[in-house]
């Protein structure tokens, strides 16, 4: 340890000398600036981003044919968007007529009380109802919302104490659970999910688009 310190002390003057030399300004060649500028010119300007290029003034210099094409395309896009949106709504209405949910339970008789759950199909999808007047927060987690506890909160009706949420769920099989005041709980009135893979049980909801009866 002491040997290292002695060697460091011995080198100190040479280090100081090197530092003095490096601190001196190095005279630049008179041709340095012109050479650098010439090199930049040869390399050219960097490419601009797509959005910036889109906004360039030359973008607006279009021929009448191009303007016509663009207008027609925008109009077509508008028609497509409108039809697709309507189809999205109509799809639910059409399959609602023949669908059933396996987790279907009667909500007509549900009354405020300790933790009663109902799931019912209605024309726009599936309605989840929870009677839990004493709790502060209820949300739904499942395959349909990425299992995020903040994605699908239920809304409380202050007069009845019923928590509800409607989801436009398409036909299929879904695992789900409720989060009640931070506690995950399965729906006791629905089939259990067979795969209790992560330590907290889930329920299963099956929404069918029934085939015509034969």
């Amino acid at each position, binding site marked *: 340890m002491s040997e290292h310190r002695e060697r460091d002390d011995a080198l100190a003057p040479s280090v100081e000398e090197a530092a003095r030399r490096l601190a001196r300004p190095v005279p630049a060649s008179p041709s340095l600036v012109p050479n650098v500028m010439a090199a930049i010119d040869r390399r050219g300007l960097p490419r601009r981003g*797509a959005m910036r290029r*889109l906004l360039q003034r030359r*973008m607006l210099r*279009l021929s009448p044919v*191009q303007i016509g*094409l*663009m207008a027609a*395309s*925008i109009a077509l*896009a508008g028609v*497509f*968007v*409108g039809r*697709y*949106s309507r*189809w*999205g709504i109509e*799809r*639910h209405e059409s399959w609602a007529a023949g669908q*059933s*949910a*396996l*987790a*279907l*339970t*009667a909500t*007509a*008789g549900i009354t405020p009380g300790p933790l009663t759950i*109902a799931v*019912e199909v209605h024309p726009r999808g599936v309605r989840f109802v929870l009677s839990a007047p004493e709790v502060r927060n209820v949300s739904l*987690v499942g*395959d*349909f919302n*990425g*299992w995020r*506890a903040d994605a699908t909160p239920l809304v409380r009706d202050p007069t009845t104490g019923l928590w509800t949420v409607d989801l*436009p769920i*398409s*036909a*299929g*099989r*879904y*695992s789900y659970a409720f989060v009640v005041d931070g506690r*995950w709980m399965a729906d006791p009135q629905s*089939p259990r*999910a*067979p*795969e209790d*893979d*992560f*330590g*907290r049980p889930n329920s*299963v909801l*099956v929404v*069918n*688009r*029934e*085939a*015509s009866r*034969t």
Partner: protein
Amino acid sequence: MRSRVPRYAALLAALVSASPGLARAQATASSGGATIAVALDAARGLEPRARTEIVAVLDSARLAGLPADALSALASKVVEGINKGAAPDRIARVVHESYSAMRAAQSILGPDVAPGEIAAGAGALRAGLAGRDLQRIKLASRSRPATGALVVATDMINRGVPAADAVAAVVRLAESGADGEALLQLQSDVARDVAAGVAPRSAALERARVLSSRPRTPSSPASAGSPSPAIPQ
């Protein structure tokens, strides 16, 4: 002109993407569940070994031609495990097991499957049903989706009904032309009977006998959840 085509296409894409109508339509279309992209994004925070295994399984599932709803269910397993705070190794194992079961269910149920059937079949296989049981339930469901029957059979097995009897109960009900509500009735009645102390096997077979002998009437949601009287112990 050639250089302007991409700009023009990009502008059009930007206009379409910015449309609230399409955003709504996309939200509707994707309301079925998690996507592979969401699962991969969620798996970024996992340790490399588990993440690599999950990515490989999801990739295999995509290449194997699993239907979109089955892929979505598999992707959902990843995000479920992460949001439930499960260990990365466990998530990877569960995703792998689920994928293997889905592949088996896919080969058993065939190409003509309703949404949810493969996931339900995979769950049934994992609960202990045999491949021939899946085939029986699928055949008994005729033109209807077998998803509900598979889920109810699986639920009864989890409540202690022997697999052969659970299959016999749902097949009997399905062959009688029962719909999803009757299946739900079977599930809830058996669950209540078992909770009340009735032997699971007796509960399943007796409930199926009673429900299958009922005349079929148009379904009404208001009566769907009304329980039948408990069978004698």
